[in-house]
């Protein structure tokens, strides 16, 4: 009997000892993000944090098409599987008003982040409602729509001569959408399997909307008044319709079957030698400068979104901020991690690894702007970005836009004005339903 009691006590002791030792190393943080290169860079970065503090940080990823669904399913279940999320900018409204994100206003003010980060990234990745001074995320990955192009096609003397003869001006990086359209038309040669341009057309999430709004903004249009939710006369203004019409014109010069394309296909348009120019978010450009993934890496150039007819120049904002999830059991640890993340040296390392820092100081540095062939274009773009609605019902609003513009751009049905009139009507009904008009 004594033996049995001794064994049981020893066993309990051993179990407790093991349990204690496990708990000592048990500090862990899980960051949820989409599956792409920046998430890999972030994992590399946070390994430094683990080395410094002993806190294991895992960047858990899921493919882009599942990202929103998986994140919100976890939020809605009030699950604690993730401690932090690098959520899309348009999630801010839903994340903050529905209680999924921790209020970071005090943290933001204490560290004077409004002076540290680029203004656009604070406005679109962190603050909700706009102008309220309430912050829900720390800008993490800056991103926006930019363009890659085939330098060798553009610089070919014969092509330059032929272009000048046809259009009356020099073939060069397009400064306006009209020039971009001309160049796309010029290089559109289906018989040679060469096409003018590759643009986003997938309407299952925000791809096509981001491409279209880049054109709409540059043509002087807007999606609405984000403060008052007014859409009539703004969403469907003549300028907005002209921007959408330009996007439709560009679609004519895309490779065949370009009706469900996003970042993968738009990069393939360059790596496969298909198109002269290709739209993509800057964060998807690293494979284009890598000879292993792009045989034309040496002759691939980059430029920022061109201007509209009145010289206005904007680009759709991508990128994300990092938020602490309300249901996390490690909120204090997550806040400590954010304190480490916003340090100047961390931001510098983040940029060196390939992440798009939002720190103004790093962005402005010569080292950053010359680090890759596209960083300068990225820097230019980050000071002319605009975003989609971040209202909590953004998913419904996004779907309505997709439903209306896709048949026009890809299906050739109706006119740009009709598509935007319908969008304005749908949005007005939706905002009325959610009592946005006081």
């Amino acid at each position: 009997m004594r033996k049995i009691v001794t064994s049981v006590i020893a066993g309990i002791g051993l179990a407790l000892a093991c349990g204690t030792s496990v708990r000592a190393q048990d500090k862990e943080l899980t960051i949820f993000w989409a599956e792409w290169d920046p998430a890999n860079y972030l994992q590399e970065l946070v390994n430094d944090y683990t080395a410094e503090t002993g806190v294991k940080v895992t960047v858990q990823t899921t493919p882009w098409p599942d990202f929103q669904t998986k994140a919100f399913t976890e939020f809605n279940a009030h699950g604690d599987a993730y401690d932090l999320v690098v959520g899309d900018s348009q999630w801010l409204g839903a994340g903050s008003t529905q209680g999924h994100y921790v209020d970071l206003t005090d943290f933001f003010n204490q560290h004077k982040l409004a002076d540290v980060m680029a203004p656009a990234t604070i406005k679109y990745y962190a603050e909700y409602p706009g102008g309220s001074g309430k912050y829900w995320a720390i800008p993490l990955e800056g991103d926006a729509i930019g363009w890659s192009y085939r330098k060798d096609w553009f610089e070919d003397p014969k092509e330059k001569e032929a272009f000048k003869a046809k259009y009356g001006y020099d073939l060069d990086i397009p400064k306006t959408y009209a020039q971009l359209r001309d160049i796309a038309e010029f290089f559109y040669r289906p018989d040679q399997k060469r096409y003018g341009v590759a643009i986003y057309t997938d309407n299952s999430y925000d791809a096509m909307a981001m491409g279209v709004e880049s054109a709409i903004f540059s043509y002087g249009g807007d999606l609405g008044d984000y403060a008052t939710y007014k859409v009539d006369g703004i969403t469907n203004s003549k300028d907005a319709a002209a921007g959408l019409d330009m996007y439709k014109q560009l679609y004519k010069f895309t490779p065949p079957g370009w009706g469900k394309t996003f970042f993968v296909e738009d990069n393939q348009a360059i790596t496969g030698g298909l198109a002269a120019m290709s739209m993509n978010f800057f964060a998807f450009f690293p494979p284009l400068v890598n000879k292993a993934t792009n045989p034309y890496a040496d002759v691939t150039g980059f430029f920022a979104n061109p201007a509209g007819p009145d010289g206005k120049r904007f680009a759709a904002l991508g990128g994300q901020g990092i938020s602490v999830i309300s249901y996390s059991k490690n909120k204090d640890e997550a806040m400590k991690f954010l304190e480490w993340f916003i340090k100047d040296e961390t931001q510098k390392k983040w940029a060196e690894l390939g992440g798009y820092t939002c720190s103004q100081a790093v962005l402005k540095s010569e080292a950053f702007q010359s680090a890759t062939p596209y960083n300068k274009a990225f820097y230019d773009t980050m000071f002319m970005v605009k975003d989609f609605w971040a209202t909590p019902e953004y998913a419904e609003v996004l779907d309505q836009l997709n439903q209306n513009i896709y048949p026009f751009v890809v299906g050739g049905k109706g006119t740009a004005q009709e598509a935007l009139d319908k969008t304005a009507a749908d949005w007005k009904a939706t905002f009325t339903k959610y009592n946005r008009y006081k």
Partner: protein
Amino acid sequence: MASVALTNLDPASRAAARGWSDLTIRNMFIIPTLAFLIVFNIFPLIYSLGYSFTNFAANRSEPWQFVGLQNYRELLSDDHIWSNFVITAKYVIVSVAGQMIVGFGLALLLNRSFPMKGLITTLLLLPMMMSAAVVGLFWQLLYSPSWGPINYVFGLGDFAWLSNPDSALYAVAITDIWMWSPFVMLLSLAGLSAVPQHLYEAAAIDRASWWYTFTRITLPLVSPILLIALIFRTMEAFKTFDIAYTMTTQPTAELIAIRLYKQAFQQWDTGKSCALAYIVLIMVLAITNLYVKYLNKVKER
């Protein structure tokens, strides 16, 4: 000695000898099944019915409110939803008709002896064993105007099947026909093999034509099983999601299941999506009931 005595008894008596009555054995199988059915089918069904009368949104923390029939009213007066139903109806008709014709045609061809019949039958069954999402992606490549073999074989040049609003739905339906015709073929083969041979022999003696034999003997005797295939395939086609979702984003190919998914998991309009699911359920039940009534009539003949 006791075990020897037990083996001489019939199964029921053996169970009784062990102390298990028929009732016990029946309950052992039925109770877990019923419990499973209630927990995973009936309970969610009733729960979601309740939600369909509320403004519940799974992504909001605020409490939900009872809104009566508002969700149903809004859905039934929404042009987009009706457009989704029209698209779905078109898809069901094209896809199911295609599967019935191709599947039954293949069964007629296979209902005779020829070399390697077993191997060919097995190969023909392969499509329906694949994952629908994989089939969707596979056919997306086949339809590609740049490198897909379909345009090359039929000399269609740059015709963009999936980007064209007029052809996207039919492209998806063709894929579904490819995938599910083998199912119809399998059921039809079972039906064809059950037709008594002496009827064909009698018809041959009377010098009946092939068409006469087909319409007067084969079709009437196989039609009950064809109707069963039709019921299954109609129900499945009505619910098609994965193939269409992976292949195209054309609004002209947005089936009701895709709309339901967007409503539920992209817009988090849970109450309304539950109501839409019930509208779809009622429609499928109504169509199925029509088929079943007709099936019973056919059986009575």
